[in-house]
């Protein structure tokens, strides 16, 4: 090779060899039909799963994919982080009261509840249960006076057979 030819031009000569790298014969004749087939296939499988669509959509945008993951994790963690302090009836802090000992419902007084419900005076658990039971059916410490009939499993309160009480004391059902 002529030594006067600058290396840059020699490189151009060398890169010109790349023009000779061609696909197999007939490749370009079949190419448009292959594209058409893929377009048809893509159209017929438009009902791809949502995760596939998300993946293909975010495949071009790594930052967007990362942001989606952060938002999803945040939504998943939010109730777990906020739950113990804000929810009514949940215990605040780490003061443990053994279950079944009738402790105070502390959420009502220890922290202001993050709910629209008005704050109430602390209520003992047993009293709270009593106030929920129909009058005359429940004796504190003894439980229900009546026994559940076999039909109770299917009919609920209406299946109660009150012993020694008139049926009129049953709460109206809705």
């Amino acid at each position: 090779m002529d030594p006067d030819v600058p290396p840059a031009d020699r490189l151009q000569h060398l890169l010109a060899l790349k023009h000779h790298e061609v696909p197999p014969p007939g490749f370009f004749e079949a190419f448009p039909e292959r594209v058409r087939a893929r377009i048809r296939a893509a159209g017929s499988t438009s009902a791809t799963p949502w995760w596939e669509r998300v993946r293909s959509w975010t495949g071009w945008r790594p930052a967007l994919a990362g942001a989606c993951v952060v938002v999803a994790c945040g939504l998943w963690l939010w109730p777990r982080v906020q739950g113990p302090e804000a929810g009514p009836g949940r215990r605040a802090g780490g003061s443990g009261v053994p279950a079944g000992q009738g402790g105070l419902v502390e959420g009502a007084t220890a922290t202001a509840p993050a709910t629209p419900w008005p704050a109430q005076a602390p209520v003992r658990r047993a009293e709270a249960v009593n106030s929920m039971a129909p009058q005359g059916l429940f004796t504190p410490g003894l439980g229900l006076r009546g026994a559940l009939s076999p039909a109770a499993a299917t009919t609920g309160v209406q299946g109660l057979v009150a012993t020694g009480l008139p049926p009129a004391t049953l709460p109206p059902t809705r």
Partner: protein
Amino acid sequence: MPPTLPETPSAPPEPPPPQRAEAAEDAALVRRAQQGEIEAFDTLVRRYQERIYSVVYHMTSHHEDAADLAQEAFVRAWKALPGFKGDSSFFTWLYRIAANLTLNHLKQHRRRGHFSLNDLDLQAENDPDLLALVSERTPRRDAALRELQEKLNVALQKLSEPHRMVVTLHDIQGLRHEQIAEIMRCNVGTVRSRLHYARQQLQAWLADCLK
């Protein structure tokens, strides 16, 4: 002894970038394709298939990957066609899709690091450059050509993807700096500096072949 290169390149040039009349035709075809006329899109495919395949192939040096990615580029172009407003030419827009697809593919398969070389086409045998490369057609000449081609591809694969893309688009495909800047969404200065750096690297790696 390493093969020497001929004085003047006369290899068949890549199809030139589209001229103004061709761009106007493209715009008309795009409008028809946007209305759902697949035949119009077919014409665009035929018009650009070689250029798109070529850029993907020179980036990947792998025929199967290039075929797959080139087809996928057209499929994505068809899907995105309703949103194409004509801010740039169809040619630039299509190239950008193919370039992004290829760069994305290369990032995902960076570790694979293999490539297959296609046989030289029949025209290459009549190319005066190649005939001058080795005087007679002998197994030794074929081997020399293959070796040269392999060295060139190895050197190209050593370049980073953006640098290889610039070399492919400019030195192999003949695009202008401005067109490359538009395709790669960077400024012209960046294209020039990448091209300069890439050529320096190639010259260093191919020093034996360039003597």
